[in-house]
C-alpha cells in the first residue's frame, strides 16, 4: 500500500552535510501497524516527515495507494495530506482552541460543512474516549488526554494512513499503554494503516505487526515482530530486544537450581508467537497428573502471540511426564529438556 523507493534526505548546513535518510526502501501493507525503531539521530523523524513531505526528499519516491506523493504539486499535496493523519510527541494542539475546536480544525481545512463537522467531532470524541471533556482547553488536559485529542484530530478526515512520531514518548508507562491500546483499537476498527516511530522496543512489542530497525539513515533489519525478537541479527537489534527481554545470559542463572533438582524434569519452554500463550501451563497441569512449577521466565505479549522463555519444573510419573512433554511439543511451543533427574 505504501511503497518507499530509494528515499534519501541530505541536510546541508554551512559546515557539514548530513545524510539523515540514506537510500531507504520499504513496503508497508494495508492495515498493518508498522514500527520503525532506532536510536536518537538514526533519521526516524526525518523519514516519517518525508512520507507527507513536511521534509522535501533529496531523492527517491513515496507512493501511497498508487499515488506518487513525491510527484505532487503544492496544491495536490495539500489535498493528499488530508488523507494522511499525523500525531506528534508533543501533541501540537492549538491551546487557543477547545478539544472540540481542535478536532474540528482539519475538517475546517477540508471544507466540511458546519453540521457535518459537529456530528463528526462528536463521533471522534466518543471514539477516543474524551466524552465530557469536549469543551476543555488543552492546558486543562493530562498528557494522555492531549494525545487522544491529537489522535482524534488526525483521524478527522478519515485518513488512509496514520503517521506517529514518538507518540507516547512524553507519556508515563501507564498512559503509554492506554494510548497504544487505542491505536490498536483504531487499527482494528477502521483498518487503518499505522506507521509508528519509536525508540522504545516495548512499544513495538505491544502493538506492531512488523518492525524495521533504523541506523545511520538506513534500515538495517526488518521483519515480523516475533521473528525479529527471536532471531535478532544486527547488534542494534539485539540491544533493542534486550530492552524488553533483558540480557539473554540471565537465563542461565537458574543453572544452580537445575543442578539441585532431585526428581522430575526442568524444561525450557520457548514461546514464538502464534497461538502459544502462558495458559498452556495450567492446561498441562489439568490434563496430566503432574506438578508443574514456574522457576523463572520472561514472556512478552506481542500482536502475534507470546514471545520468550519459561523455565518450569515438572514432577510426576515418568509416563505422565512423557505425555505432558509431547502435548506441549504439539503446540507451537518449543520444549528443551534441561535436566532429567
Amino acid at each position, binding site marked *: 500500500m505504501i511503497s518507499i523507493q530509494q528515499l534519501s534526505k541530505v541536510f546541508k548546513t554551512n559546515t557539514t552535510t548530513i545524510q539523515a535518510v540514506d537510500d531507504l526502501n520499504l513496503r508497508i501493507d494495508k492495515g498493518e501497524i508498522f514500527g520503525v525503531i532506532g536510536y536518537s539521530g538514526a533519521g526516524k523523524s526525518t523519514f516519517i516527515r518525508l512520507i507527507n513531505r513536511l521534509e522535501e526528499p533529496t531523492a527517491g519516491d513515496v507512493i501511497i495507494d498508487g499515488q506518487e506523493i513525491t510527484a505532487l504539486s503544492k496544491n495536490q499535496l*495539500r489535498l493528499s495530506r*488530508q488523507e494522511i493523519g499525523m500525531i506528534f510527541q508533543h501533541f501540537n494542539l492549538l491551546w*487557543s482552541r477547545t478539544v472540540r475546536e481542535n478536532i474540528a*480544525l482539519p475538517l475546517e481545512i477540508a471544507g466540511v460543512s458546519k453540521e457535518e463537522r459537529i456530528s463528526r467531532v462528536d463521533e471522534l470524541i466518543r471514539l477516543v474516549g474524551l466524552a465530557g471533556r469536549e469543551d476543555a482547553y488543552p492546558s486543562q488536559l493530562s498528557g494522555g488526554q492531549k494525545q487522544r485529542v491529537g489522535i482524534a484530530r488526525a483521524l478527522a478526515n478519515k485518513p488512509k494512513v496514520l503517521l506517529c512520531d514518538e507518540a507516547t514518548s512524553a507519556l508515563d508507562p501507564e498512559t503509554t499503554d492506554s494510548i497504544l491500546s487505542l491505536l490498536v483499537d483504531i487499527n482494528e476498527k477502521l483498518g487503518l494503516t499505522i506507521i509508528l516511530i519509536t525508540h522504545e522496543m516495548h512499544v513495538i512489542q505491544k502493538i506492531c505487526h512488523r518492525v524495521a530497525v533504523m541506523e545511520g539513515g538506513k534500515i538495517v533489519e526488518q521483519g515480523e515482530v516475533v521473528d525479529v525478537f527471536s532471531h535478532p541479527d544486527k547488534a542494534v537489534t539485539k540491544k533493542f530486544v534486550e530492552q524488553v527481554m533483558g540480557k539473554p545470559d540471565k537465563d542461565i542463572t537458574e543453572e544452580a537450581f537445575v543442578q539441585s533438582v532431585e526428581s522430575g524434569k526442568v524444561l525450557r519452554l520457548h514461546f514464538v508467537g502464534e497461538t502459544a500463550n502462558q495458559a498452556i501451563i495450567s492446561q498441562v497441569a489439568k490434563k496430566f497428573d503432574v506438578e508443574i512449577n514456574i522457576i523463572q521466565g520472561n514472556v512478552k505479549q506481542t500482536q502475534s502471540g507470546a514471545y520468550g522463555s519459561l523455565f518450569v519444573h515438572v514432577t510426576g510419573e515418568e509416563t505422565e511426564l512423557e505425555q505432558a512433554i509431547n502435548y506441549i511439543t504439539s503446540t507451537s511451543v518449543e520444549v528443551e529438556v534441561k535436566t532429567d533427574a
Partner: protein
Amino acid sequence: MLKTLFPNVNWFDLLIATGETFYMTILALIGTLIFGIILGLLLYLTAPGGIWQHKTLNFIVAAFVNIFRAIPFLILILLLIPFTNFLIGTIRGQNAALPALIIGSAPFYARLVEIGLREVDKGVVEAAKSMGAKTSTIIFKVLLKESTPALVSGLTVTAIALISYTAVAGVIGAGGLGDFAYFHGFVRQDFDVMFVCTVLIVIIVFIFQFIGDALTNKLDKR
C-alpha cells in the same frame, strides 16, 4: 470647590480636549494595529526558515521598521509635514496628527507582533501543514489566533506609547490634552491646568492598561 482649587480650568474645553485625545489615540491605534500586523507578519514570514522565506524583502521590511523606530517622535512629525499636508490637506488638528502617530508606532508594534508570532509553537504550524492547510489558513487560524494574547498585550504597550505621542503632537497643534496643557497651561503659566491635564492623561493610560490586561488574561488559555 473645583472653581477654588483650579481657578483657571475651563472644564468644557478640557472635556473637548480629552475627547480629542481619545479620538487620536483610538484611530491611530486602529491604524497601528493594521499596519503593525502586516509588517510583523512580513517580518516573520520572510525570515530565514519562514513560509515565505525571502532575503531581500525581509531586509527591506526590517530596514523600514528599524529606521522609523529610531527616529524620535518629535522629529518624525516635523519630517512628515509635507507628507501629512499632501495626505490630509492640512498640518493642524487631530487628523493631521494621525499619519505621524501611525508611522511612529506601527514599526514598534510590528516588532512586538513579530516576537508574538515567534512564540507560536513551530509544532502547531507543522501540525496544520500536515492537515493540508493553506498558508492563509495557517496565518489566520494558527499564527494570529495562537498569538492573540501577545498581540493584545503588545497593543496595550503601544497604546500607552501612543497616548504620550498624542501629547507631543499636541504641542505642534494637534489638539488633545497635550495641546491643552501646553497652550492653556504652560504658555499662560496656569499650572492648575497642567496639573489637571496630567492627571487626566495618567487616568487614560490606566484605563488602557486595565482594559488591555483584562483582555489578555481572558484570551490567554495557556
